[in-house]
């Protein structure tokens, strides 16, 4: 998991590369580097963030062509030596790479035997040395021969001293070309180039492109192919913090709009017929929902919506485990949820499902991402680019997509459907109400921040909410947090309860209410402080719990949306209280494009 960028044109490459890299830091940020070719090829890199590199760079880094990299270490720890770009023995060929080379050990031994000297511990370094070996006057040809020997996933950009071109290629890792006027850009993801252009070309697996100042040419298996350019509707605005201290808080605040945008056009009073009725043919047959991380929690909510409310059997699978255990058939229907559309485990799962004859619908936030090209059907959520590593608005958008996907299926009477649709339209206002009152949540968060452990419990449709609340808290505040179905506490976790471990209980006025009340009392008996999320006006829970956060009244089916927003804010303010780097938590990267 890394980000790569490249520039070729009439301007100085250094500031452009650094700006592009800064926008890709969500993909990794343990080290970074750039290579710029002017009079002479210069490489500068270190195990520092892009901002720090910018300050360290000498002023005379000049040249109008260059490549850059921001890294999330896989092979070889974060260090100056392991940072990209990597060079060949002559120092004339430099490469940036995102992905993993599986057979790099064999290649490296072979190359070392042939006399190549390796500086780093990385898998990447075999690439420049292979290119050096095969170079006979044509850089593209050398790259083609190199990639023929390489097994694994990659997006690479190659820069060779004295040549007015960048050679790039991708396989199982994302790569785009940003088309400018008399200049072109390379990047792992669209936000990197939005400051300069909104026209992009998405490269596909096994594409190799030669990018020059004025044009580019894409080849696949030796034949020239035409790749359409897309106009990106995101703008730079979306990728900036706009007055907020952190992207995460900005993105939490965007959720009312995201909900409106995601349901727009899919809801009309009196009818809930979606054009995207993907389950029509599979009616009654098994549905598999696959995802990783936060998206998996959306999948679990999806299971409750479809199964409990709409009587369809649903299986959820963690995408990275699906390869070991998963079984599907042509009778199954699958939904794969991936924010970035580039999550390696999700892509692998899609390929497996398709090979088993199971039709796949992808819910993703990124138009043109790898997942969209593999799927039978695509549903794009309207969350806009999400920069904060901790997912917030993309999760809410996934939930909204699942709701409107499920409604046509609903084996419930039309009156209830109508009521649900009316309620759904009111969600943006209810989320806004939580945001307007976030000061109160911040006070509760300051309490949570004083502990080193926390438990989140929920039942029914709010069980996945407990998981998501715990995940948010642990990933940004580093407080050890666990989510449990409330009924499971007795089977082990009880041993950890004490006055030093607060329990956050998510209570909705649904069929799990009484059981939740019992669980809270049990927890209280073990001296754990209890913070409960309750519907406003609930005085029963208020009496039992130590403190409560009252949320707006909402149909229990939609309570995950409301409650998750509260828990996002709880995690945010707890992390802020503890002084954590909220947008870029340690060891994490935005989308995990390695397995």
């Amino acid at each position: 998991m890394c980000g790569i960028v490249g520039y070729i044109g009439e301007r100085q490459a250094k500031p452009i590369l650094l700006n592009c890299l800064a926008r890709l830091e969500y993909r990794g940020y343990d080290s970074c580097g750039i290579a710029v070719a002017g009079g002479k090829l210069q490489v500068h890199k270190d195990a520092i963030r892009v901002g720090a590199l910018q300050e360290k760079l000498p002023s005379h880094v000049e040249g109008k062509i260059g490549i850059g990299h921001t890294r999330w270490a896989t092979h070889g720890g974060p260090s100056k030596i392991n940072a990209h770009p990597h060079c060949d023995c002559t120092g004339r060929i430099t490469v940036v790479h995102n992905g993993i080379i599986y057979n790099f050990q064999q290649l490296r031994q072979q190359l070392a035997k042939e006399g190549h000297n390796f500086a780093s511990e990385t898998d990447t370094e075999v690439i420049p040395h292979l290119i050096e070996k095969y170079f006979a006057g044509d850089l593209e040809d050398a790259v083609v021969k190199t990639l023929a020997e390489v097994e694994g996933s990659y997006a690479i950009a190659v820069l060779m001293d004295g040549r007015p071109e960048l050679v790039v290629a991708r396989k199982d890792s994302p790569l785009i070309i940003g088309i400018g006027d008399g200049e072109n850009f390379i990047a792992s993801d669209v936000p990197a180039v939005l400051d300069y252009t909104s026209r992009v070309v998405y490269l596909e697996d096994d594409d190799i492109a030669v990018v020059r100042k004025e044009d580019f040419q894409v080849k696949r298996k030796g034949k020239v192919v035409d790749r359409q350019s897309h106009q990106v509707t995101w703008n730079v605005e979306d990728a900036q913090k706009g007055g907020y201290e952190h992207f995460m808080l900005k993105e939490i605040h965007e959720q009312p709009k995201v909900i409106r945008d995601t349901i727009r056009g899919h809801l009309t009073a009196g009818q809930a017929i979606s054009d995207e009725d993907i389950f029509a043919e599979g009616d009654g047959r098994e549905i598999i929902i696959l995802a990783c991380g936060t998206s998996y929690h959306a999948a679990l909510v999806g299971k409750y919506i479809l199964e409990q409310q709409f009587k369809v059997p649903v299986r959820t699978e963690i995408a990275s485990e699906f390869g070991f255990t998963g079984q599907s058939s042509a009778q199954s229907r699958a939904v794969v949820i991936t924010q970035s559309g580039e999550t390696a485990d999700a892509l692998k799962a899609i390929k497996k499902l398709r090979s088993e004859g199971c039709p796949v619908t992808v819910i993703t936030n990124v138009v043109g991402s790898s997942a969209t090209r593999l799927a039978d059907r695509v549903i794009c959520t309207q969350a806009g680019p999400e920069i904060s590593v901790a997912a917030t608005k993309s999760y809410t958008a996934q939930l909204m997509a699942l709701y409107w996907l499920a409604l046509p299926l609903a084996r419930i009477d039309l009156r209830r459907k109508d009521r649900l649709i009316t309620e759904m339209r009111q969600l943006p206002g209810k989320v806004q109400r939580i945001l307007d009152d976030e000061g109160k949540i911040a006070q509760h968060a300051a309490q949570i921040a004083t502990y080193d452990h926390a438990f989140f419990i929920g039942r029914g449709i709010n069980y996945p909410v407990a998981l998501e609340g715990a995940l948010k808290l642990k990933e940004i505040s580093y407080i050890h947090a666990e989510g449990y179905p409330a009924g499971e506490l007795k089977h082990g976790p009880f041993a950890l309860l004490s006055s030093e471990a607060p329990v956050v209980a998510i209570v909705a006025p649904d069929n799990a209410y009484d059981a939740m009340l019992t669980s809270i009392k049990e927890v209280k008996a073990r001296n754990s402080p209890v913070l409960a999320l309750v519907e406003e006006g609930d005085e029963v829970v208020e009496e039992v719990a130590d403190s409560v956060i009252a949320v707006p009244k909402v149909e229990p089916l939609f309570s995950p949306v409301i409650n998750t927003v509260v828990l996002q804010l709880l995690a945010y303010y707890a992390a802020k209280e503890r002084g954590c780097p909220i947008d870029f938590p340690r060891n994490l990267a935005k989308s995990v494009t390695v397995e």
Partner: protein
Amino acid sequence: MRQAVILAAGEGQRLRPFTVNRPKVMLSIAGKPILQYVIKALAQKGIRDVVLVVGYHKEQVLDYFGSGELFGVDLKYVTQERQLGTAHALAQAKGAIKDNFLVLPGDNLIIGETIDRFDTIEPEAVLVKKVDNPMRYGVVKVQRGTVSEIIEKPEEPVSNLVSTGIYAFSRAVFDFVEPHLDLPDVANRMISGGQEIRAVETEGTWLDAVYPWDILSLNAAILQQARASSAGTIEAGVSIKGQVSIGDGTVIRSNSYIAGPVVIGDGCDIGPGVCIFPATSIGSNVVVAPFTEIKNSVIGSDVSIGPGSIIEDSVIDNSCDIKGQFSACRGQEEIAVNHERHNVNFGAMLGEGCVLGNSVVAQPGVIVGNYSQIRSLKLINGRLPDRSLVL
């Protein structure tokens, strides 16, 4: 002038309930917050380096305007933590100011023409305007084009020329700024210190909302500039007359009749058989059920209005859920705001998130606080505080 400071931190206390959860600058007029008109005026004059002083419910401003990219300006935010006067607000921006600059109140609605020529004037200067009710504002005493004094809210105004709150200043102004002062105080101090402040009169639009019902007159005034456009779906048998703007994903169902100027936002579901008359603004994600009539009103976002309702000269804030047969007709009424008596003529003012049962009748002049709940068949009048429960 290359830079401007917009003061957007104020609450607008007399505009409650609409300013309980948002600053006054974010009141929606013809589908856009007041502040957006001010920013647009600056962008039209090529002033793109804009410092926004935010404070009270600043997130609302941040969420809407972001970095300013979508509005053609480059916004920097500075926060006034406590609202200690407009001079104190301006002082917060000192570090971001390079040279001569404009100061504008973000809560008075202006258009580009309002600041014609003033955008290029040499400091120090104040933009003034003739109004009918000068006692509400700072009256400006002018001698030979120069201000001799600004008198705030005089009982007996010496003229009908008032300050628009728009100034052209050099950095010298910061020597006169102290907490707890307002900008007119600062201007008066500068004058007594021998500094000349010129008065420049504008004929352009300058509108201020002081009381909740002022939203209606501002809305009507601005809607006159509305232009017809449609990004939605118009079913067969819909009549649309005049300047009607319809947002993306909005559906107007059969047999509805819309007479502009009317602005309707994105993702709304209107009709069948709904009548919307001038001058009405409707937000996004709004449902208007069959056989409802709306005129001269401002409807927020995420609002649901049930069938057979009559809504005249009314403001209905975001997320209200109104069942059928709601009646809010306009009429004369005397009401009190902060112990001042006012003769008004409007229908109903509903705060955010109100839930109304069937067949609620609003007496003219009723002002309902945010998140109130009114049961079916109730008659409401007077002033209801936030979270009222009418059983």
